């Protein structure tokens, strides 16, 4: 009786091990199912989804115009004080003063890519970009100015 149990134990043990080895061995002869990606060699054809949140950027059109009114809604929505809006007063031809964006300061090192600023913006002036390779040698490079030099607000955006 004891011998019988002993042998059946050994049989089941060996069988379970072989079942497992069959699984791993199977991939040996089916290398097509291996899904390893060779980053960074595959950088050129790396497709990130258009919703992927890599960093905040400001949308500029071909005339170097953006839609940011300097309303600071994004600054208030941000949980980490990543955004600092510096405003100035534009004087229009008829002599009226109007608040406008001077500098959009963005601290990439503080950003958690939560998308709350983009959601908060009433004029869709900012969006998330897909760039995720953010390492730099100097921390000061992470503080960015998002409105391009010489850019101004698009006509008709209030």
């Amino acid at each position, binding site marked *: 009786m004891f011998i019988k149990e002993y042998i059946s134990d050994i049989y089941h043990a060996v069988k379970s091990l072989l079942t*497992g080895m069959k699984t*791993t061995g199977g991939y040996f002869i089916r290398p097509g199912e291996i899904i390893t990606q060779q980053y960074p060699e595959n950088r050129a054809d790396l497709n990130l989804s258009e*919703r*992927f*949140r890599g960093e905040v950027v400001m949308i500029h059109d071909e005339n170097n115009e953006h839609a940011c009114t300097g309303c600071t809604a994004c600054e208030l*929505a941000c949980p980490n004080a990543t955004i600092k809006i510096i405003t100035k007063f534009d004087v229009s031809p008829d002599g009226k003063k109007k608040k406008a964006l001077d500098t959009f300061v963005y601290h990439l090192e503080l950003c*958690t890519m939560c998308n*709350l600023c983009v959601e908060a913006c009433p004029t869709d002036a900012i969006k998330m970009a897909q760039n995720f390779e953010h390492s730099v040698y100097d921390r000061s490079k992470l503080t960015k100015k998002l409105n391009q030099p010489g850019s101004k607000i698009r006509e008709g955006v209030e």
Partner: protein
Amino acid sequence: MYTETQIVHNNTKTTVDGALDGTGEMVINVGPQHPATHGVLHLVITLNGETIKKLEPHLGYIHRSIEKMCESLSYRQFIYVTSRMDYLSSHINNHACALTVEKGLQLEIPPRAQVIRVLMDELTRIASHELWWGAMAMDLGAFTPFFYAFRERETITDIMEETCGARLTMNYMVPGGVMYDIHPNFQRRVKDFITLFKSKIDEYNDLVTGNIIFQNRMKGVGKLSAEDAISFGCTGPVARGSGVKSDIRKLFPYEVYDKVEFDEILETEGDSFARYMVRIREMHQSVRIIEQLIDNIPEGDFQAKTKAVLKLPKGEFYTRVETARGELGVYIVSEGGTTPYRIKFRSPGFSNLSALEHMVVGSKLGDLMATMGTLDLVIPDIDR
């Protein structure tokens, strides 16, 4: 008092090499940097030979005072921080917070958002259990399962990336619904994943579950009786492995969980293998839920209309959800302002960890890994 040759630990004098004077016992530290603890958990273990006499978890190495931080954030902002608690169930954490805020605002959630939320929760649950399965096998010395688990998990993270915009800390649940509508590819890709996953889960069973070495190391180890599971406040697969009904999705259904068919998985053994089986079988149930919902996402809004600034009425609000690890409770005290007066999270990991000493005292040091692995601890969830 610390001197060069003596460390005072719990009023017992130990020499630097950890031996306790005159008892034949010694104190060793597992962690805070140790591959078996999956994070910065510090266990102070008193050993006699190889037998565990005492085990004391030391917490706080990754305490970021999330609860205190939340007091200075608005009801929209605090949700993203909670992704960093139990980062493997970040969707479900966000969900719990969103539900609590909605309870305070008495907001109706559009049916489409409810279904999307449940789908995301269940995908997260599968992803979390997969990672646990790989890590669990790795604790016991098997390396291959880790890669297999990550291979399938990668498909889920890809789906998440496409729809939510992030792979781990999604911040997709917002008060009133979800942040944006599902991606046009979402349904097709989830269905592809389900088909793939069903064949792979058999592979998992062949590779690990049926393995005789694995079974011998798991069975009869880390016993937890149903009474103890209740008195330690264990929830989730840890409690269900001991036969305690604790699935919040069944007991206090939220969203559409009362409309879908699934079973609460119960095992009665209470050992490590029972907890292992609960999670494996739970993955099947998650697949079942997804299959019922994926073709039946109702049309309509994905977000209810909310004010730009949310103000909760004065009062106390509590909701609970079932994360991959157990019951997560979110308790908000509001003074009527735009930020919470106090937030408390009841995290499943903390209570589950408290049962660890009870489970391992008297067993061998090697069994500690086989037991701790099945608790599925995520340390940031414990420390917060």
